[in-house]
């Protein structure tokens, strides 16, 4: 371990056993008051808050290490390159990928999906072929495939879900066939909280020779990930959902697939040599990283992975499940409230509707109580249509969420009902 790396270590705090109150202190923003009331942040599925360690790592990069990566021979450039590539290795370990070269830095999950659609998809998906997704996808895992289908003449198929918000595996199996050239599915639904059985889905797809892309944006902050155990071919995540900064994410792609894929964007860093007659492309992952990357974002993502690594993963999962169970029980006592998304295997996303009260009105009234929730269609309009709803209110949990947050939500909902009595 280099001297520099060891100097990072004090930033990695350990929280064992799981002490949510101590953990909350690592997130400076949570100490804020909103309209004079303590902030109750229940919108982590939209974006998570950032621990001090992430904020510090990013400012330290600007203060001490900033220079362009993969370019200069000077000291700072080497140091920045090292820090950037160390993060790649951290993402590799976080996902348990076999090789660091299987990790491509992107802006976020959305860019990762677009990258696969416009590189792998362009080569392998043709007229008459099919791309299969599910009814619970975020727009970012729908629209890039629609665009690909429009370009290629392929057909987009959609595997249905049941009323609880669980994928109908038998229907999915029926839809996978020799025409299926790719299956794209979320690991965890951003609206329902449903955890999809990725391993079984991959088996079904691979049996028909179809590779699988997993949208892991909502899974990365909550589940222990192992792309080799999942067996998936691509896995996408966003830094900002997992306590890191915005504008950085990662795409995992199996090495054989990445090596055979054409570039995504052209520019610096993705080339071996350029002449006006011919350009030779660099090898993965650099082939897919044109231009100066979001270096400080990558540093922040690395710090976020260190932060998550400093938590006892089992204790974190147990804590989040306990708060989820508490919240489900609490919300069940609210008259006229209906939970949307009651899958057996789910994480802390609580979408709900209240009889006769529009989610936006709920959101505004809760806001004045210092409670931040998301209201609307959550970038999943087809899923909303599946439930016959225009919008829901959604409270979502993070590692710092506690039972007091839920108590505040419940008190806030009583105020909402008072206004509309």
């Amino acid at each position, binding site marked *: 371990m280099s001297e520099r790396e060891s100097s990072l270590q004090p930033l990695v705090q350990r929280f064992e056993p799981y002490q949510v109150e101590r953990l909350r202190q690592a997130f400076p923003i949570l100490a804020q008051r909103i*309209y004079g009331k303590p902030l109750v942040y229940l919108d982590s599925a939209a974006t998570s808050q950032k621990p001090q360690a992430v904020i510090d790592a990013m400012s330290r990069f600007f203060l001490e290490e900033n220079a362009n990566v993969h370019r200069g021979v000077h000291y700072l450039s080497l140091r920045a390159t090292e820090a950037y590539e160390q993060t790649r290795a951290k993402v590799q370990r976080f996902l348990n990928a076999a090789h660091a070269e299987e990790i491509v830095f992107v802006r976020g999950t959305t860019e990762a999906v677009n990258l696969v659609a416009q590189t792998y998809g362009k080569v392998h998906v043709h007229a008459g072929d099919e791309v299969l997704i599910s009814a619970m996808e975020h727009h970012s895992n729908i629209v890039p495939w629609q665009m690909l289908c429009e370009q290629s003449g392929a057909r987009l198929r959609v595997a249905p879900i049941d009323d609880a918000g669980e994928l109908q595996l038998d229907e999915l199996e029926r839809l996978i066939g020799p025409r299926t050239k790719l299956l794209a599915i979320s690991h965890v639904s951003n609206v329902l909280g449903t955890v999809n059985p990725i391993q079984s889905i991959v088996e079904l797809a691979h049996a028909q020779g179809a590779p699988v892309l997993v949208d892991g944006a909502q899974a990365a902050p909550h589940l222990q990930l192992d792309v080799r155990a999942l067996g998936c071919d691509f896995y996408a995540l966003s830094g900002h959902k997992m306590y890191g900064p915005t504008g950085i994410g990662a795409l995992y792609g199996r090495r054989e697939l990445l090596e055979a894929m054409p570039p995504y964007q052209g520019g610096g860093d993705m080339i071996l040599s350029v002449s006006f007659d011919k350009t030779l492309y660099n090898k993965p992952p650099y082939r897919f990283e044109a231009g100066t990357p979001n270096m400080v974002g990558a540093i922040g993502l690395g710090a976020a992975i260190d932060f998550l690594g400093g938590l006892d993963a089992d204790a974190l999962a147990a804590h989040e499940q306990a708060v989820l169970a508490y919240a489900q029980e609490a919300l069940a006592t609210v008259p006229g409230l209906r939970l949307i998304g009651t899958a057996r295997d789910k994480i802390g996303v609580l979408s709900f509707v209240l009889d*006769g*009260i*529009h*989610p*936006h*009105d709920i959101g*505004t*009234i809760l806001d*004045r109580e210092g409670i931040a929730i998301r*209201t*609307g*269609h959550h970038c999943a*309009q087809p899923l*909303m249509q599946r439930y016959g709803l*225009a*919008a829901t209110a959604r409270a979502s949990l993070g590692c710092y969420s506690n039972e007091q947050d839920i108590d505040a939500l419940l008190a806030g909902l009583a*105020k909402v009902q*008072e*206004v*509309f009595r």
Partner: protein
Amino acid sequence: MSDALRELYQEVIVDHGKRPRNFRRIEAPSHTAQGFNPLCGDQLRLELKLVDGVIEDIAFQGEGCAISQASASLLTLAVKGMRQEQALELFARVHMLLTEGPNSQLPAEALGKLAVLAGVWEFPLRVKCASLAWHTLRSALAGDPAPVSTE
């Protein structure tokens, strides 16, 4: 409850939000327009019958929050019987009330029943909810075939 909230969710707003007036279709409307708020998925369809420059009947249907439903409901009550130019002038005044708040040039009382919309001004994120119906009215009167979007 905070004063701002009480100002926003006045009884009239809650009442019209729950039981919007003129929430129906019009037979053979002369003008129609659709409005969308892509941020929240609100949508409404406004229909009116213009006879000799006068809005003889106006109605709407749609889905949205209490603010957007109440605003549309109050709109239909306010402009029914008005001349087209009067309705457009009212649009301008309501738009100013929503975006700039009541002031000496435009005291809320000058808008009669619509004064209840004054509270929206303090909630910038909700201005679009309240103004959707009014933009849709303007588009309907202009005969603009494209749906109105608040984005």
